[in-house]
């Protein structure tokens, strides 16, 4: 597939350490003009570090970087951008107070007379970009309040806003729905035909095989494999990533289904979800499926009392929960693993130990003071049980990879011995190996009689893990499936609102 002599962008023997942690070694990577290269690996394998090095966010410790065969050195994201490298980062980098248009062109506003910003031109340009991405968003609308999917679209528009020769995408599709992913891919294909070099990071194998020409696999901070996509099978790819065979991604245990733990009765939040009623019983895993924005997370937030419902009520083990009171929900025995672990699941600056034991502060304290020895004992116990990979328990949670961060969030809730565990996208952005571990954990919990309410956008996860599947569409429960009934096609049909008659 290499259509050009010298690769557009090349990294040779790059290394990067954060303190004692070697995040990257043997960083070798080349992307040519007209090539889409997938970068794959488990979380913590060093993919994000490579992206940061290429994007000028961090500087490599050693090795060289070449653009068009010429050695370059980026001191800031600005330098990378000037070299024609556009990056879509995993974490949102938007400015909530500013308009979509300004978010897209920030720092590179089109200028008119006297170097004043030409707003008309700015809006035209951004409108054209949004049209190209096939979304109906008003460029003059503020970004605040946009759904995650729309925010992702703005990120993509931002990266496409200048004539980038290299486009690096760190999990751009994580929050997108099917048609949106398709549109993004058609734009990527156009860019490829125009001769751009594209580096694409995703955990979704089907996407990688749909769009990539070649693939680089990383493991434990090093590049371990480099292949043309045609010359590798999905199974081999997974094996190279995890360094071992994956027997089962979804180790579902048979469990005894017990008493009703959670009862949700006619729950409504104006403009978000309507008339939602369902039950979750002990030992049962119930999946809430649906498209992004269907209101699944919002239902979960209302059940846990983060948002107050406008009508309806929630019962836990027969007792009604006061609306809008997460603390009461916690005391009643609900654990909540939120979708956005960076912002809502963890306190990134606090230590791993503190994060893992936050929910147990009361029992760890003596006379109101937390004993760090007890904190460490408890944290270490859970770290072992969940096979957490960490350097020191005193390191900030931010130092962990995504999958390990999720384990800390799980530890935090599991130590409270919840009756009901709500998990929102438990494996989003988590590598294959850790994914299976999280699945095993959830399955074990259900086996111990915990009721699990799982929100997931990944169909294999829903079908593989759930005893029952509730499908939401536009804020309403569209259809319910038993484990036996649920298959990919019927769930998708219900989620896209084409199965109303059947319900």
């Amino acid at each position, binding site marked *: 597939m290499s259509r050009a002599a010298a690769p557009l962008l090349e990294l040779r023997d790059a290394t990067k350490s954060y303190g004692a942690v070697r995040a990257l070694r043997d960083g070798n990577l080349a992307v040519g003009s007209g090539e889409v290269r997938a970068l794959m690996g488990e979380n913590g394998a060093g993919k994000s570090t490579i992206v940061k090095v290429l*994007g000028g*966010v961090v500087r490599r410790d050693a090795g060289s970087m070449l653009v068009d065969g010429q050695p370059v050195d980026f001191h*800031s*994201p*600005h330098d*990378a*951008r000037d070299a024609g490298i556009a*990056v879509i*980062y995993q*974490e*949102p*980098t*938007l*400015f*909530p*107070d*500013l*308009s979509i248009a*300004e978010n897209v062109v*920030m*720092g*590179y*506003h089109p*200028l008119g007379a006297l*170097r*004043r*910003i030409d707003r008309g031109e700015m809006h035209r340009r951004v409108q054209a970009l949004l049209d190209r991405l*096939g*979304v*109906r*968003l*008003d460029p*003059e*609308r*503020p970004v*605040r*309040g*946009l*759904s995650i*999917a*729309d925010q992702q679209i703005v990120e993509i528009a*931002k990266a496409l806003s200048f004539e980038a020769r290299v486009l690096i995408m760190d999990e751009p599709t994580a929050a997108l729905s099917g*048609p949106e992913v*398709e*549109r993004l891919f*058609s734009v990527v294909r156009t860019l490829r035909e125009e001769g751009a070099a594209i580096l694409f990071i995703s955990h979704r194998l089907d996407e990688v095989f749909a769009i990539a020409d070649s693939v680089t696999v990383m493991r434990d901070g090093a590049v371990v494999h480099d292949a043309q996509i045609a010359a590798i099978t999905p199974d081999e790819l997974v094996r190279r990533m995890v360094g071992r065979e994956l027997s089962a991604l979804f180790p579902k245990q048979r469990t005894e289904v017990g008493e009703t733990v959670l009862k949700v009765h006619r729950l409504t939040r*104006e*403009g*978000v979800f309507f008339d939602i009623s369902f039950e979750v019983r002990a030992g049962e895993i119930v999946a809430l499926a649906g*498209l*992004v*924005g*269907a*209101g699944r997370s*919002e239902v979960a937030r209302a059940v846990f009392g983060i948002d107050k419902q406008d009508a309806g009520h929630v019962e836990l083990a027969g007792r009604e929960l006061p609306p809008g009171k997460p603390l009461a929900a916690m005391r009643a025995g609900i654990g909540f693993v939120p979708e956005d672990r960076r912002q809502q699941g963890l306190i990134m600056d606090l230590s791993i130990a503190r994060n893992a034991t936050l929910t147990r502060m009361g029992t760890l304290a003596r006379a109101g003071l937390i004993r760090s020895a007890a904190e460490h004992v408890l944290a270490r116990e859970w770290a072992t049980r969940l096979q957490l990979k960490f350097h020191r328990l005193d390191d900030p949670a931010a130092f962990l990879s995504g999958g390990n961060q999720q384990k800390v969030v799980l530890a935090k809730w599991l130590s409270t011995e919840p009756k009901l565990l709500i998990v929102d996208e438990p494996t989003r952005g988590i590598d294959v190996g850790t994914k299976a571990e999280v699945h095993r954990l959830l399955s074990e919990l259900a086996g111990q009689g915990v009721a699990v309410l799982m929100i997931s956008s990944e169909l294999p996860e829903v079908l593989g893990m759930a005893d029952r599947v509730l499908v939401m*569409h*536009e*804020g309403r429960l569209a259809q319910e499936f038993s484990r036996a009934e649920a298959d990919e096609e019927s769930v998708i049909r219900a989620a896209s*609102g084409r199965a109303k008659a059947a319900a």
Partner: protein
Amino acid sequence: MSTQAAPAGAPAPADSARARRLTEWVFRVRELGIIVALGLLILVTGILEPRFLDTDSLRNLALNASIFAVLAAGQTLVLVTRNVDLSVGSVLGLSAYLAGDLLSKHPGMALPLVFLLGMALGAACGLLNGVLVTWGQVPALVVTLGTLYVFRGIAFLWTDGSQVNAETLPDPFLDLGTDSLVGVPILVIIALVVLLLVGQWLRDFRAGRELYAIGSNPDGARLAGVRSERRVLSAFVLAGALAGLGGVLFTARFGTVDATAGVGYELTVIAAAVIGGVAIFGGTGSVYGAGLGALLLGTITSSLIVLKVEAFWQQAAIGALLLLAIAFDRLVGLRVDAALRRRSARRAA
């Protein structure tokens, strides 16, 4: 591709446009609210005490607000970047004494030069603040709290207990503080020009927009290629320079300057900006709002003095106004968020 691509929500653009109008309306209502409050205040005070509506009295009102408006414009630049400058009162004191000292010793000195030196001194102070905040990576609150005392201390050392008196200052300089040009006090004209220049810079120039970006999401700004350090530094330097300008204007207006000139101004200035809708956590607000906030604060103080209300109540009134403004922002913010959320949810569904 594009034919099957149309998302489900056909009314999306209309919703989006409504969302935009909503936010625009909120900002307008914000500045309008201050103007209405201002009008009511002047009206009520005028009814209770007609002397308040004398040309002289209103003139004084505008003159007092002018210096605060200049400082508030500078403060807005810093606040928008999610920083704060507590040292502006002390910087004003330094440059006020500099202007008085220079002119009493060299009465023939060209006035533009005095203004330039005052602003340069302010800019130097701002540079120190900015360097400590950006390169030193110390929070602005701590840095400028420190320099508040340091600059004031320097002023005490420098003046050594002496003061500059109006008699020793040249008349053309003092006239600046009282004279009018086609009926409008020169001080007010200067303040308006400053507001307009800074306002335009923030609205229509890349550097200005980047300040908002930095305040709205500091990490995001860096990733977008904004040279944040440089921008924040320039915001502090400009705020310092404007505080310096305020100092020269202070001397021109009051004539008498000692080491305590401008003590406590920083809080009034920040209050003015916040009342005018500048978010203390950065990202939003305009200098025009801040200017209006300064005018409203000045008017309240004056009207309470005219109505012979005790000093304690003046402070309480300002405090109450501040809380009211913040509560209003929060309330409106929540409602707008809810409205935007509803629209976005409907669109995505």
